[in-house]
């Protein structure tokens, strides 16, 4: 595999781009692997990469029912941030952001990570006080955070709707400057390429149809490409976790599958340099501009449980209303595409990276809205869990039994209603 460098790009430019190899192999499944990761999304690929890189595991497979980047890895709004408040979340997402900051170098693949600031608009003195409390707490554990007054905000983002008679006049903003966006497909491809270079077998079009259990252990998975033996198995299939969980012989999980839509407009000239979030009352909206110029944005869930990867029209209207109320200049912009992904919405809005009742089966699930930004740390800690067979201190509460123990990580304080954890 050719290593990417300024020199290799220059040399291939002279050779008509003919010197590039496949970015990763397309191997046949072996009879058995030391570790099989089910799910070739960002979390599964990152897990395989860190298992090989940090823990020296050699014999790893990632099985994916479709193609890389075809699930939620390619269906998000690419926002990366670590402005979380609850203990556990704060340390986890800050670690993830630190991994993002070095990811392109680490993978030798440009994931186009752009630390362009994440700006949450504030609409009342109480909201500013609340954000100040939250952001001061973040600063205690080393996450950057600022509160901007209205003049600072206007100087930085001049074309928001600042009119005094807006339904929710803007009074200031909570800002994380190290937050930003990344190119989501490149993250999948970068992790796949780097994992493959360390010997990981990436098996696409390989759907899991069942599992084999012997003596209280999982010994193999049945797939559309045959039976694959496994000494350890990790599930990382957010969206369809419950189905896979039932294939492994279990029944319920504190998870419901809901779908979330995302939108991209026709390309525009540079308009918005930051990620802007509008969330007050019933509104929920986040927007950034891609490097190609498209406005990338999204809003709430579709409000009912669904496994269908397609969105409904009331949310299209809701998101469009939010868009023009906060950025009236978008009123005549045409929508280019819109799509939907299936989320594991957990009962408190926090994820699971934990052991299961089977000693050699590990679970990575429940990512709600937040899976994209979490993917590097998710892979890092899941690999650590699988390799060492014990949870790292940082993820020690990302367990399935936290509800019974009363240690929910409810960042939004919304209670046990999965659709509310946006």
């Amino acid at each position, binding site marked *: 595999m050719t290593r990417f460098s300024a020199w290799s790009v220059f040399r291939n430019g002279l050779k008509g781009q003919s010197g590039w190899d496949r970015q990763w192999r397309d191997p046949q499944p072996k009879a058995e692997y030391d570790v099989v990761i089910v799910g070739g999304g960002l979390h599964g690929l990152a897990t395989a990469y860190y298992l090989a890189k940090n823990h020296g595991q050699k014999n790893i497979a990632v099985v994916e029912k479709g193609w890389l980047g075809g699930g939620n890895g390619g269906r998000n709004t690419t926002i990366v941030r670590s402005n979380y408040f609850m203990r556990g979340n704060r340390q986890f997402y800050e670690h993830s952001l630190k991994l993002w900051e070095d990811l392109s170098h680490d993978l030798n693949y440009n994931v186009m990570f752009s630390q362009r600031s994440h700006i949450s608009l504030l609409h009342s003195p109480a909201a500013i006080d609340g954000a100040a409390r939250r952001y001061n707490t973040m600063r205690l554990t080393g996450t950057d955070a600022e509160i901007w007054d209205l003049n600072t905000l206007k100087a930085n983002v001049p074309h928001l709707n600042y009119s005094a008679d807006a339904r929710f006049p803007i009074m200031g903003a909570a800002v994380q400057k190290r937050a930003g966006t990344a190119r989501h497909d490149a993250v999948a491809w970068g992790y796949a390429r780097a994992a493959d270079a360390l010997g990981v077998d990436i098996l696409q079009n390989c759907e899991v149809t069942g599992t084999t259990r012997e003596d209280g252990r999982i010994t193999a998975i049945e797939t559309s490409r045959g039976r694959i033996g496994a000494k350890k198995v990790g599930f990382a299939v957010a969206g369809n976790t*419950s189905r896979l969980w039932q294939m492994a012989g279990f029944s*319920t*999980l504190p*998870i*419901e599958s809901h779908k979330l839509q995302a939108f991209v407009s026709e390309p525009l000239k540079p308009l918005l340099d930051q990620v802007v979030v509008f969330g007050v009352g019933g509104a929920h909206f986040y927007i950034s501009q891609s490097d190609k110029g498209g406005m990338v944005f999204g809003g709430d869930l579709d409000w*009912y449980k*669904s496994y269908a990867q397609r969105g409904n029209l009331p949310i299209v209207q809701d998101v469009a209303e939010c868009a023009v109320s906060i950025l009236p200049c978008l009123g005549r912009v045409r929508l280019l595409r819109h799509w939907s992904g299936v989320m594991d919405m957990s009962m408190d809005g926090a994820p699971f990276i934990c052991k299961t009742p089977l000693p050699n089966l590990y679970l990575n699930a429940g990512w709600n809205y937040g899976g994209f930004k979490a993917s590097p740390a998710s892979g890092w800690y899941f690999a650590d869990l699988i390799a060492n067979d014990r949870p790292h201190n940082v993820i020690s509460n990302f367990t399935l039994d936290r509800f019974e123990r009363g240690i929910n990580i409810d960042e939004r304080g919304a209670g*046990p209603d999965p659709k509310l954890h946006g």
Partner: protein
Amino acid sequence: MIRINCPFCGERDHSEFGYGGDGSIEYPPLDASAEAWTQAVFERENIRGVQTESWQHVSGCRQWLLVERDTMTHEIHSVRAAHSGVAAVVEKEQQS
């Protein structure tokens, strides 16, 4: 848009309704064990296929309904009032 045939108001857009979630949950007695309550409040089968779920017609009659809906195709198989007494009265009216 999903269309839900409310037994009181007729067929309406789903945007008139609030979504309650899994309608098959049976809550245990108040003095049941913590495990039983954890199971009812937090644990879900999360069916891909036909499941019974509760919807409230918030912009209409405000009745809670039990809807059998496919969570993959969104096809609705049946709608009835959630309250068994109300459902019995509606059924009787429809038969007479």
